[in-house]
């Protein structure tokens, strides 16, 4: 499995895909006193300051409407902050012109609660699309897509349409799509929001494995139980303010995916057998 991950991009792609992210001294994500007030006057985020280093796994937690999704959407430059600045890999988002936004997004994998798959395309085509977008050749696409789908455990469903899959499988497709470019940053907005606990563990395990390859991961969720059990850094938001930022020292950063899953299952009280991955 790790071999699959390692067989990833060529040098040229890495240079293009990861501007400066490889330098460890620059945080991958930095919020500097960021405030977002929506047009209607409601506050999405208030004076948030936050640094996330390379390779970190960070949970954004808090009740609905606390500003988790606002953070995610700000990072994708879907929204502009009302005040303050956001840097990704040392680049200030506010200075990226509209026309460059697609190139920013190619370096950010995204996973959503409602999967956001293209409804009329097969699993294979959905994943292939994000490679076609960056102008990947057909041979490369034919090589990479089956690889990544095998990694997420969907190698038998290549030609199924999204509505023929279960929720967990659809989420796996969207994770495959988010990660097939090997972006330096992965954002997940309530990735387990629509899934049952056992499926959720499988998804979390997958995201953790992506994190283990060096990708910085930010997961927004309101599933406090899962967050507590996973023992990663937790940033808690309440009414747009950061009220807790725990650099949880409890976890072993080198924990393998299997150990991780076994511990998680044990602590959540779910059976050990589950997804083969």
């Amino acid at each position, binding site marked *: 499995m790790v071999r699959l991950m390692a067989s990833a991009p060529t040098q040229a792609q890495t240079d293009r895909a990861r501007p400066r992210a490889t330098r460890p001294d620059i945080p991958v994500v930095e919020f500097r006193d960021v405030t977002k007030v929506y047009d209607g006057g409601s506050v999405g985020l208030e004076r948030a300051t936050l640094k996330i280093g390379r390779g970190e796994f960070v949970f954004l937690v808090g009740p609905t409407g606390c500003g988790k999704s606002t953070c995610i959407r700000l990072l*994708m430059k*879907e929204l502009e902050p009302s005040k303050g600045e956001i840097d990704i890999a040392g680049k200030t988002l506010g200075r990226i012109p509209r*026309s460059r936004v*697609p*190139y*920013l*997004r*190619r370096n950010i994998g*995204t996973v959503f609660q409602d999967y*956001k*798959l*293209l*409804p*009329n395309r097969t699993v294979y085509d959905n994943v292939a*699309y*994000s490679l*076609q*977008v*960056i*102008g990947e*050749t*057909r041979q490369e696409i034919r090589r990479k897509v089956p690889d990544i789908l095998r990694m997420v455990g969907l190698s038998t469903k290549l030609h199924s349409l999204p509505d023929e899959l279960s929720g967990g499988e659809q989420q796996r497709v969207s994770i495959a*799509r988010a990660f097939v470019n090997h972006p330096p940053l992965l954002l997940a907005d309530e990735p387990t929001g629509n899934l049952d606990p056992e499926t959720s563990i499988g998804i979390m395990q997958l995201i953790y494995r992506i994190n283990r390859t060096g990708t910085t991961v930010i997961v927004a969720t309101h599933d406090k139980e899962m967050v507590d059990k996973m023992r990663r850094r937790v940033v808690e938001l309440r009414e747009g303010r950061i009220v807790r930022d725990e650099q949880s020292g409890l976890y072993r950063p080198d924990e393998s995916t299997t150990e991780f899953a076994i511990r998680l299952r044990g602590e959540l009280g779910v059976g050990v057998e589950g997804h083969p991955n």
Partner: protein
Amino acid sequence: MRFSFFLREALRGLRRSSAPALAALLTVVITALVLGVFIPIVQATTGTANEVRNRVVVDVYLTDTATEADRTEVQRSLEGTPGVKSVDYISKDEALRELGHKVNDAQDKIELLGTNPLPSLFRVTPEDPDELKAIVAQIAPGGNPRLEAIDEVQNRESDTGKILSATGLVKGLGAVMAGLLVLASIALVANTIRLSVFARRREIEVMKLVGATNWFIRWPFVIEGVIVGFMGGVLSVLLLALAKTTVVDPLSDRFELLAAPDTIDFPVLIVLLLFACVAVSAIGSGITLRRFLRV
């Protein structure tokens, strides 16, 4: 690689949302048909109006005492007047013959008089019917002819006025209606395309999320527009050709109006319609996308 990818995407789009595509196709066919019928009609109308306008002339009557030399002088002076297209001489006898065409027994009636009372005249055709008054003013400033041999200048003022205003109205109306029709066609096609794009706005949103540039998303839609526009154009041209060969051509053998020389050539019309169909639907789908690309 790029183009074939976009083409495949376009064909996929057409296949997956065939209902809106069919609606767009029908709209294109119908508007192109209406335009294809209307353009020649407007042209025939303006052509006829122009022909009527060309009948506007000035008659310059000579005195009975005018000599041959006087006549030549008048002719030269008329031909030298700016804005004059042609000058025709009509002698007393010719004038009588012309009258004979219009009035029954004119010959007999005039024989009762003993002499031919009709004066010989020059018929002056202006280059532009609207310049008529200026020409009259040149020949006879203030109603007094500049040359002695000229008895009277008649521009049949009331007739001319009527002809000019009536034909002007016809031409103006034709232009306005053609303009409205073109506008309506564009609006109709654009709206239909907007609907089919709207149906796929979620898909576009997802494409933007994975980092597709605007043109990467737009090209397949534009190609779809070209395909729909072209197919619609071809279909309507076929229908028009059918209507032309079965209805218009047999009629035009019998009626001169339909074969008015000014109407557009059929091949030109075809090319024009095809081009308009393709352009409107391609640009339409490209532009309507803009709203959904702002994510």
